[in-house]
């Protein structure tokens, strides 16, 4: 009841229906009691909303009436045509023009063909033969091309059992890729398939079982190296909760996933890895984990079986270390890893579009 009295007072106050004495008392109450003050402010806002609601409602009613009246008086044209209206309209409008144009075209065609028949001398048989040979030549060429295409397809002979699949990504446009060591364990041959479905032969340059990393090199004349990589390999550490994404081949097609960095260490406090909350499946192993700027911060390598969405990734600085080690051992490998990202200010769709070409599926043929 009190509430109602208060509401009534507030409304009378706002509508200016109070006498000066009442108004003075009420204003004093507002000053001393913040709750009353809040109620008045709130009610004022509400009354304004109410007024506008009323106005629009009345206006809509008028509009409705007007439409109705004008329609009854026939001042608004009723149009019966549906979505095909435009074509019908154009046809009605240009029917005559179309008819005239068609007949002129017909007559002209007849005339020209008649003239051609009259003027043209009979073609010598040799010309026709020559033409035929050319066609044969073309046919031959097409056949050769077909065969070449088949050759490319047969790079992996049918019947070869592909045992394991994983993901890898370029770290140097010359054809050096990084993946997880466990992906290529026990491999006799390795093929990399890009997002367009093309296969390339690759060889293992280096493996580091401890870090669970491996370097592959594409050894295939069909490989066209890109001028530069869109992403860089990050050396610095990443903060908790930073949003990350990955691209990989859990199925025969590239799949995007996103998540966040949930811990700075991996399984049982492993400082070489990050813990990431992301959806990952077998086949995602070896895929890059990228941050918002488009820097590779890790390589996805395992997930916890007991928990949902808990994934571990080897920190990206391990790639740099591994490559340094490799250079010490084998100076013939001139790997220059990409450090700069050009994805910084792009939205995610654009980023992914640029990265996709640098992510390869790893197909392993076991010994």
């Amino acid at each position, binding site marked *: 009841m009190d509430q109602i009295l208060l509401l009534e007072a507030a409304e009378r106050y706002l509508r200016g229906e109070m006498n000066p004495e009442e108004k003075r008392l009420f204003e004093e109450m507002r000053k001393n009691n913040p709750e009353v003050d809040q109620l008045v402010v709130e009610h004022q806002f509400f009354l304004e909303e109410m007024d506008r609601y*009323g106005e629009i409602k009345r206006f809509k009613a008028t509009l409705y009436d007007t439409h109705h009246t004008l329609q009854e008086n026939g001042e608004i044209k009723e149009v019966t045509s549906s979505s095909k209206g435009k074509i019908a309209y154009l046809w009605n409008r240009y029917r005559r023009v179309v008819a005239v144009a068609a007949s002129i075209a017909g007559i002209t065609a007849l005339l020209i063909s008649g003239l051609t028949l009259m003027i043209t001398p009979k073609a010598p048989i040799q010309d026709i033969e020559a033409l035929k040979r050319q066609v044969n030549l073309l046919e031959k060429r097409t056949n050769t091309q077909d065969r070449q295409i088949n050759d490319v397809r047969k790079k992996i002979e049918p019947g070869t059992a592909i045992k394991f699949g994983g993901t890898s990504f370029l770290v140097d446009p010359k054809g050096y890729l990084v993946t997880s060591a466990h992906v290529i364990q026990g491999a006799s041959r390795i093929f990399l398939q890009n997002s367009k479905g093309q296969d390339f032969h690759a060889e293992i340059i280096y493996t580091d079982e401890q870090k669970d990393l491996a370097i592959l090199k594409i050894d295939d004349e069909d490989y066209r190296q890109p001028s530069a990589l869109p992403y860089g390999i990050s050396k610095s550490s990443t903060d908790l909760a930073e949003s990350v994404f990955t691209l990989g081949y859990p199925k025969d097609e590239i799949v995007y996933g996103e998540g966040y960095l949930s811990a700075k260490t991996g399984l049982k406090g492993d400082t070489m890895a990050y813990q990431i909350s992301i959806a990952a499946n077998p086949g995602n192993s070896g895929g890059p984990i990228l941050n918002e700027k488009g820097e590779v911060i890790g390589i996805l390598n395992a997930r916890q079986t007991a928990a949902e969405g808990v994934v571990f990734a080897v920190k990206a600085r391990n790639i740099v270390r591994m490559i340094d080690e490799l250079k010490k051992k084998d100076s013939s490998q001139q790997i220059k890893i990409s450090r700069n990202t050009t994805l910084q200010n792009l939205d995610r769709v654009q980023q992914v579009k640029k990265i996709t070409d640098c992510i390869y599926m790893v197909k392993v043929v076991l010994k």
Partner: protein
Amino acid sequence: MSTLEREKELLKGLASNEKEAIETIYRDNYNLIQHLVIHNNGTEDDARDVFQEALIVLYEKAKSGSFELNCQVRTYIYSVCRRIWLKKLQQNRRFETPVENLEETVPVEEDIEQHDKLSHQYSIMRGAMGKIGEPCKSLLEAFYVHHKNMLEIAAFFGYTNADNAKNQKYKCLMRLKKLFFAQYKNGN
């Protein structure tokens, strides 16, 4: 009267919800908009909805007082309708060919954004009104929308005196406020 003065008069009439002014604006512009909508994958009903929404935009502008007409009413209405219709087409993915421009247009993006905000609040209020049920809804609308006084309301709804009706009105109002603010705070 020059065209400019005539249009100013029309807008004034529109702002105060005068039937005559609204009828004139309706008569002068409706067929153009109907043509636009129907020839761009729309129906007659679409045309009416789009046109009426545009008139509400114009009404809101005219009422705000800050509106200075720097183009013809016709151009303004056409621009707003075109924009609204394009948006609808895109939402429904019926967008096939770009809507052709038969008339010149003026930029109306901001006005439509403002209108979307207002119409969001309008629909919250309408939703709350729908939820409080009868006779609360009619009682409140009689007072706040149709500006009837409490005596008329008491007589119409069959209350014995105006005070009882008033009491009931405040009870309804409290419920409406609760519903409105719950929705309003959620939505924002």
